[in-house]
């Protein structure tokens, strides 16, 4: 039921802040010229993350309570599909807004998530490292190019670099209320070569605090 849509004769969607248009399903992966530094100290280029079935780009951060509610499931999924779908997690937040989002904070989150994944797989957590890059978008170029506005927000591309899923990890931040694992379904469809059944959902999370372009 479209509750308020019946009222929308004069609906005007205004934007008061500096925003960029988000990419839509069917669009090509935007070009991001800057290489981004991962928590392992290596530099990563977005375009070269692609694997045989595509690329999973997740905008995330360290401080956001909604990220924290989803991050374990997202880390486990990312690890599970990483051999077929290239995975990259990006932090575009300006740590001026919240110091927890600085590089050191990213390394701590990464170490925590590596343990979560290892535990999930029944492996030793002692020397566990994150199995996919978690990088800093230090001028927010990637977030601007994608039109990402929240964390967590997911963009899934097929092998041709076409956006085939966009939105949330699943249908509930609260793990005990999850009924539909949207990203898992999309990844499964993508890997199996099927059309993605539910290709668009709405991500809910903390607004990205953009860094200045020249930082």
């Amino acid at each position, binding site marked *: 039921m479209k509750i308020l849509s019946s009222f929308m004769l004069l609906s005007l969607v*205004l934007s008061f802040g500096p925003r960029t248009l988000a990419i839509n399903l069917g669009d090509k992966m935007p070009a991001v010229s800057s290489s981004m530094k991962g928590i392992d100290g290596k530099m990563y280029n977005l375009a070269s993350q692609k694997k045989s079935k595509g690329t999973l780009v997740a905008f995330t951060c360290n401080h956001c309570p909604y990220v924290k509610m989803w991050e374990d499931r997202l880390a486990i999924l990312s690890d599970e599909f990483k051999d077929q779908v290239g995975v990259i997690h990006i932090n575009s937040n300006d740590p001026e807004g919240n110091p927890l989002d600085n590089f050191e904070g990213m390394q701590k989150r990464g170490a925590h998530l590596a343990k979560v994944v290892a535990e999930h797989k029944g492996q030793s957590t002692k020397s566990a490292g994150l199995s996919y890059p978690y990088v800093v978008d230090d001028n927010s170029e990637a977030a601007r190019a994608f039109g990402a506005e929240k964390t967590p927000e997911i963009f899934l591309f097929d092998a041709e670099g076409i956006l085939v899923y966009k939105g949330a990890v699943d249908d509930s931040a609260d793990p005990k209320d999850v009924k539909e694992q949207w990203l898992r379904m999309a990844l499964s469809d993508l890997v199996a070569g099927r059309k993605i059944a539910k290709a668009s959902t709405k991500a*809910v999370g903390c*607004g990205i605090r953009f860094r200045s372009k020249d930082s």
Partner: protein
Amino acid sequence: MTQENASPAKCGKRIWWVVLVLGIISGIGFFLVSPRVNQISRFDLPVSVEFVTASSLRNKLLNSAAPLKLVNMWATWCAPCVAEMPHLLKLYKNYRDRGVELYLVSMDLKEEVRNVEKFLDDQGVDFVTYLKDQKDNDFINEVNPDWSGGLPASMIFDAKGEMKNFWIGDLSYEDFEKEVLRYLESGKSQ
């Protein structure tokens, strides 16, 4: 036998005891089964938070004849929402006498109701506010299919319950005031 020996006065007392016990039992039963899903949770604070779905929110808007209803979707974990809240409250304080109603709808998890109330109380809120009791995507799509889910999100409704404006992002007091005045003035001329 004792029953045969019971005096009318004793019987009367017994009846009153039975009535009292039944009263207590039914009172407890009513408390347990009463519709608590939509109850207003109170923690002895002037503010109260009522659970809403998109549908029940819509009904509230339709049932109000106030000339301008400002709906603001926010969350305690959303920094811009928190920054915007004092502007909204100042606006409401300054314009409620002119018929402006403010509907604060928290997107926090239901379990966070105590934190939501605490936050609002700290902000000096002493009126009924709301908290989403529906899955995020269902709520967002039913409130406005054009809403990306970004917060804060605000909507302006006129006296008839028609949505006149919708936007995402935090506003300053001055920008809020401009929006409210624009629709208060246009409402008068209709």
